[in-house]
């Protein structure tokens, strides 16, 4: 089985995000870059499928040269090879452009299933997986917490508000991974050593035969609205404080 996993490099969740004074983006100095946590579920699922079905796992990522580290992380976890799409014209790419580049690269290799994170925790857009499926002309099942493969089809579990759906899709398809799907493994030391020798293809937009046509743009980045300072409710006893709180919630905040 030929398995593809799309991964993105994002700031670690511990990162305190600072907005540039001119609103043109975030300050990238000092950021620790990691694999998007939802993509880790994709890598883990791919490796589990490979262990069961046999086959090979290709990691694909788009971004500047630093993303090689994230591809190597996935290779150290056990993936077989990588494709790095690096082109300055793709910097700040929207979902459609990103998916166009990924689709162009994936079309050059055999694939039976493609895993993506359900969203990247930087831009939180959650679009690329489904757009990629559309561009490849295959089905998408998104934000899923379980996936079982049988006979050229996959059965997934998708949580929605107040229910869970069991959905079946033929293969190939794009599957976007939600927390709960699995527990991503850590790379082992031998894995890290082996990863250094695994092949990674580097491609630019021209090699992929794509022209960049952005459909959406972040025109301004702004800090979150500041919250007015709150008050600490004083009192002798818990009961007193609770009574004061409930009164404030009713009379001042008017929320209960």
């Amino acid at each position, binding site marked *: 089985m030929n398995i593809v996993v799309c991964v993105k490099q994002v700031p670690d969740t511990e990162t305190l995000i600072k907005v540039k004074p001119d609103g043109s983006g975030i300050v990238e100095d000092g950021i620790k870059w990691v694999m998007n946590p939802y993509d880790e579920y994709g890598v883990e699922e791919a490796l589990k499928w490979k262990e069961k079905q046999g086959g090979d796992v290709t990691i694909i990522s788009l971004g500047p040269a630093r993303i090689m580290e994230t591809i190597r992380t996935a290779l150290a976890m056990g993936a077989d090879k990588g494709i790095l799409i690096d082109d300055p014209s793709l910097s700040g790419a929207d979902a459609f452009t990103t998916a166009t580049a990924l689709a162009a690269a994936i079309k050059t290799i055999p694939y039976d299933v493609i895993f993506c994170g359900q969203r990247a925790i930087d831009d939180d857009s959650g679009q690329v997986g489904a757009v990629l499926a559309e561009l490849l002309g295959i089905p998408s099942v998104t934000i899923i917490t379980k996936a079982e493969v049988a006979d050229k089809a996959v059965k997934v579990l998708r949580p929605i508000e107040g229910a869970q759906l069991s959905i079946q899709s033929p293969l190939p398809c794009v599957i976007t991974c939600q927390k709960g799907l699995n527990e991503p493994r850590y790379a082992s030391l031998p894995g890290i050593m082996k990863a250094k020798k695994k092949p990674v293809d580097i491609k630019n937009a021209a090699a992929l035969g794509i022209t960049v046509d952005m459909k959406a743009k972040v025109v301004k980045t702004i800090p979150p609205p500041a919250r007015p300072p709150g008050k*600490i409710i004083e009192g002798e006893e818990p009961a007193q404080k609770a009574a004061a709180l409930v009164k404030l919630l009713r009379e001042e905040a008017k929320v209960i």
Partner: protein
Amino acid sequence: MAKGIWIVAEQRDGALRKVSYELASAARKLADQLGEDVGAVLLGGPGVEGLAGQLAKYGVDKVYVAENAAFEPYTTDAHSLAITTVVKAKDPSILLLAASAQGKDLSARLVGKLATGMATDCTDLKIADGKLVAVRPMYAGKCYGEIVVSGSPQMASLRPNVFPLAENAKAGAIEKFDPSLDPAKLQTKVLEVMKETGGSIDVSEANIIVSGGRGMKGPENYGMLEELAGLLKGAVGASRAAVDAGWRPLKDQVGQTGKTVAPNLYIACGISGAIQHLAGMSSSKYIVAVNKDPEAPIFAKADYGIVDDLFKVVPEITKEAKKLLAE
């Protein structure tokens, strides 16, 4: 020239979801600024047309209805094909969907089918130079972005519970359309819908969330949060620590790797306020923190803080709230 502010109405089991009215209200506001009409796409099984009137109440001028058994239950394929057909035929300038479980799935596929751009999970919409400017949290709310979509239609998905409802009755004229569904293109199938018992509200849809973290000490203590949440008709949330410890289900997790929420009231009990958690809940209208550690970062975000033992405070809050609600 593209014209019209459209929404995709979301219905389940023959009832419109509240977010559909939020979409209609937000679309009406934009339409009035631009001098355009509001259209709604409504898909469902036979008889779904009967819901059109409720959309009209919130400012929808025209409802584009397609009835087909393939729309029940929702599938990505049937819905995205039908909406693409009608959008391509009528060419609206703006298309709004809910950033709900269904809307997230559907809207992303539509971005591909319509070859356009979208601002996901928006919390505000503005018009500048005749174009939609969508405001949305990024990095789970650690910063915000203003997005301009240059593709057509300009798509945005709206975070549930954020946009106010505004009744503003319009004609709601019904125009039926043929979704021209090619059975060969309906590839995914819903095998089973497993409803959760107990009818609890999802944290993403709740007006009030009572959330517990590591300070709850164990799963057996969440009963007191459930009681308070039940009383306030809210939902119980959890920090990542509580979910990773196996105390609470994943669907309740609030934070950067869980759900980003914006209820009217968020009561954080025994949650210290890790940056990832704060990112997921700091756009709540009012935040209450109960924690015995006065230095806990959660207090910096709280409108009201109580520094005390939550096991003593929470039952008292419940008692007081009960008294108040009985009045």
